[in-house]
């Protein structure tokens, strides 16, 4: 197993920040997920949250850390434990997206600026397989890796005050879905009728770090059908288990 050179810093009274090198890489993601799973497995009662980002894990404790060296030593030894149990399974998710101009507010602009016909934007965007790195910014906002370079497009200099729930956007070299209506600076290319975040579910967000996402183009008509099915609770997001 690869072992990375990690730094450990105390972050305020109650948190420890563990950092990998500043890169966006699937191998680092795997290492982070592995480490996180081990920490969760050991079920240390005083640990309240384990939050991962591209290159870090933040461990939040229930109260002030009395002895930082003891805690860091414990965490380091957990990292060294070999642990083949893959407790949490990862999935491929097919997310329906309607790229119709009704939803794709900024498709024209991206097309003109990047010199890519709209059809090709849709083909490229829906052709890629995206990796879920982590969730942040908003409840259920997935940070996805894998946007084709030709679709890179800078964030809007003036963010929109209202971006619709389900809006699929491009911001710089990133793509993602707004899980709820919010202000936003990303360029909108479509909309998905599915809910990225649902408080009434036992697991409010179906996706997690390490999962893969594919956007499946659907027509306006199909979009409405999926919307109707979701309303009556008759829609399950197509998914497939990822085998190692």
């Amino acid at each position, binding site marked *: 197993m690869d072992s990375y050179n990690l730094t450990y*810093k*105390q*972050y*305020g*009274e*109650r*948190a420890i*920040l563990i*950092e990998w090198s*500043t890169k*966006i890489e699937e191998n680092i993601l795997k290492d982070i997920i592995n480490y996180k799973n081990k920490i969760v497995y050991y079920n240390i009662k005083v640990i*309240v*949250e*384990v*939050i*991962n*980002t*591209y*290159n*870090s894990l*933040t461990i*939040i404790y229930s109260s*002030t850390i009395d002895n*930082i060296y003891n805690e860091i030593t414990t965490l380091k030894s957990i990292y060294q434990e070999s642990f083949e149990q893959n407790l949490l399974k990862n999935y491929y998710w097919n997310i329906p997206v309607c790229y119709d101009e009704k939803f794709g507010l900024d498709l024209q602009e991206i097309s003109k600026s990047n010199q890519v016909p709209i059809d090709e934007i849709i083909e490229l965007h829906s052709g890629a397989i995206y990796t879920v790195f*982590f*969730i*942040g*910014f*908003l*409840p*259920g*906002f997935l*940070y996805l890796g894998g946007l084709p370079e030709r679709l890179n497009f800078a964030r809007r200099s003036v963010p929109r005050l209202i971006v619709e729930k389900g809006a699929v956007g491009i911001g710089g070299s990133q793509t993602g879905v707004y899980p*709820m209506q*919010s202000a936003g600076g990303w360029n909108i290319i479509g909309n998905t009728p599915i809910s990225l*975040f649902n*408080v009434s579910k036992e697991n*409010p*967000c179906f996706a997690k770090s390490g999962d893969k996402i594919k956007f499946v183009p659907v027509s306006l008509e199909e979009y409405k059908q999926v919307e109707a099915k979701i309303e009556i609770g008759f829609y399950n997001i197509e998914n497939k288990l990822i085998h190692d």
Partner: protein
Amino acid sequence: MIKVLSSGFYTTVQDQGRHGYGELGVPGSGAMDLYSSQLANHILRNRENDALLEITLGKCKLIFEKQNIICISGANLSPTINGSIAPMNTAIIINMGDILNFDKPVFGIRCYLAIRGGFQTEVVLKSRSFYKGITSQFQVQKGDVIPAIETSESLNRSLSSIKVDQEHFTTSVIEVYKGPEYDLLNKRAKEKLNKINFTISKENSRMGYRLEEPIDNKLGSMLTSSVLPGTIQLTPSGKLIILMRDCQVTGGYPRILQLTEKSVNRLSQKSTGDVFSIRIVPLN
């Protein structure tokens, strides 16, 4: 049961926060001034996580539909019950029909109204703390009926009045630790942080406080990483943002300082135009 006759500038239901969902991007929320909110519950011998009302800046009027016991802590927003001055930081018996009014701030800006047994609003993701997109309401509105447990208890079970250290509200020094990216700052920036006074701009809320005075830097933004309430971010423009309880779980600006827990509580009682200096204290 409390009926809201006038909602005030910004009133929400808060408890100790929504914990355990940060990995899904859910903010911690919870009372801004945990010291004052915990004090109110403690005086009533409530459970620590019993929900209270967080009343900001005043102009809030409530009528009690049943008998109960309350405690008012935190900012002094000129509370009166049926027109008479209500004592703070002590248990008060409330009778059916009593009207509790909050008018103008005398000191502090966030006041906590605790009630015996806590307010019984909906629990979403293990917390009653209001948050837009999580709880069905994100702000208390005129006409709302806020459920509570009726009680005809006497005051025997509650603690007698507790004297609060006024420094909590009057201090002009905010203690901080060095943040994860503190060492990226050049010498001049570090000196400026230590030396100057900072003013809270009018852009301040439960999500964060923006400060007026910029710190010149060439740091730019960084790879998105996690942030905590109390984290001070340095934006490329030089302006500082102090993240507070409703802040997002991740952010892309350098985290140069981190407020102590006590400082987050104290800053919560400050508002637009307030001035303070920063003192870096060692971690352990």
